[in-house]
């Protein structure tokens, strides 16, 4: 049998994960409805005052996206770890870090992309209009892949531990903070009329930084977990 090339291995990982997600469509639906329900709780809890909702909207939607990513992190490696696929993946004679990028990308398509696509609708719930809806979607599009990247590190570190769900939240949420600040800041500054370019650039920088380092750290953490 010939060795798979790097791109073949990468495409194989992505295709397999997406196919598995399509076979468990309820999992994907769950994270979508989680976002919708949590975002709808805030107007009920805070009260339907339009000015207040517009003020807290960007932050609430960003925190919701953060939580949706966090809750789906358990699915990133656990099933593969339990049935041994992860060990086989680690044996593929290609860089594990690149394969991790494939898995994280598939995770983003399943958990992050739906939030990005839903965000204009959710933004309307909070009375965001015109430009700021566009900035919200753009900031989530730039920011949620970073969340999946960073989350991958936490998921790999806590693989197979007792109480790993809570632990991964404690490890990963502090690292999410810059993305949250810049993401929500982009929307807020566009609403204030001072332009969102600076915050969006910083989000892009976060993405590039996480793309450079997170897959490598995740691969190291996975090898530690598999020992």
């Amino acid at each position: 049998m010939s060795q798979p090339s790097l791109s073949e291995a990468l495409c194989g990982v992505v295709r397999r994960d997406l196919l598995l997600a399509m076979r468990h469509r309820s999992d994907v639906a769950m994270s979508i409805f989680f976002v919708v329900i949590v975002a709808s709780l805030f107007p009920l809890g805070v009260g339907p005052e339009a000015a207040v909702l517009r003020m807290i909207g960007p932050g609430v939607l960003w925190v919701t996206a953060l939580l949706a990513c966090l809750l789906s992190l358990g699915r990133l490696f656990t099933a593969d770890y339990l049935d041994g696929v992860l060990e086989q993946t680690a044996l593929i004679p290609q860089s594990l870090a690149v394969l991790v990028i494939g898995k994280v990308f598939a995770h983003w398509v399943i958990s992050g992309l739906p939030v990005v696509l839903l965000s204009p609708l959710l933004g309307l719930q909070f009375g965001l209009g015109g430009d700021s809806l566009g900035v919200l979607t753009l900031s989530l599009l730039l920011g949620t892949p970073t969340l999946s990247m960073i989350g991958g590190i936490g998921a790999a570190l806590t693989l197979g531990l007792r109480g790993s769900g809570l632990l991964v939240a404690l490890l990963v949420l502090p690292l999410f903070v810059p993305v949250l600040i810049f993401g929500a800041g982009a929307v807020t500054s566009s609403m204030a009329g001072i332009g969102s370019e600076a915050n969006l650039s910083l989000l892009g920088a976060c993405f590039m930084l996480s793309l450079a380092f997170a897959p490598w750290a995740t691969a190291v953490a996975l090898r530690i977990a598999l020992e």
Partner: protein
Amino acid sequence: MAINWFKYSSPQAFLPLAGRMIPWFSVAALASICVGLYIGFFVAPTDFQQGDSYRIIFVHVPAAWMSMFLYVVMAIWAGLGLGLNARPSFMMAQAIAPTGAMFTFLALLTGAMWGKPTWGAWWVWDARLTSELILLFQYIGIILLRASIDDLRRADRASAVLALVGVVNVPIIYFSVKWWNTLHQGASVTMTESKMATPMVAAMLIMMLGFWMYSFAVTLARMRCVILDRERQPSWSKHSSIHEVVEAR
């Protein structure tokens, strides 16, 4: 004569060495903290803007420095452990973490006590305060991750990876007062110049030295406990004088 430093990379050789060094560092810590506090409270002049409330700076600034510095030191030990596959390095990282977390908490606490009279609020969501708070969360995360993994080898390596990932936060804290123009004042003392009266700087540097010595003493003491805790089986550790303490714990 060349000293063979690698001799002390074995826990067996390090344990008595640490035991001999602890009293010296403890005395040095106590002495310099007393001198620093004396100069800070009785010699340093009163600030013309903030009155006497500024005097918490002599605890606040050294604690904040130590919180960042100890994180970097811990990450270096963690990286050495991963790179050289050396157990004592991981033990050092493990021994440093609680002290670092303590200094981070102390910096936040004294900051709040200082913020109330000068800013009128215990807490503001300023860039430096927020990033220091995140540093505390990172310390706690590292300690908790280690505590929740039963396999020692995996606990060492996993918390080392987490410590290295968290290093990105340290420059953010350090430069936060430059990058974002927020409420927290900029650095009063840098390597090249100082904006403070000489006794103030002297008190701060002496307190800094005292905190350093304290960190050495406490880390070494904790290191001894970690070594004895991990090496319960080998017969050499049975002869150690503090073995009974660990057994009783």
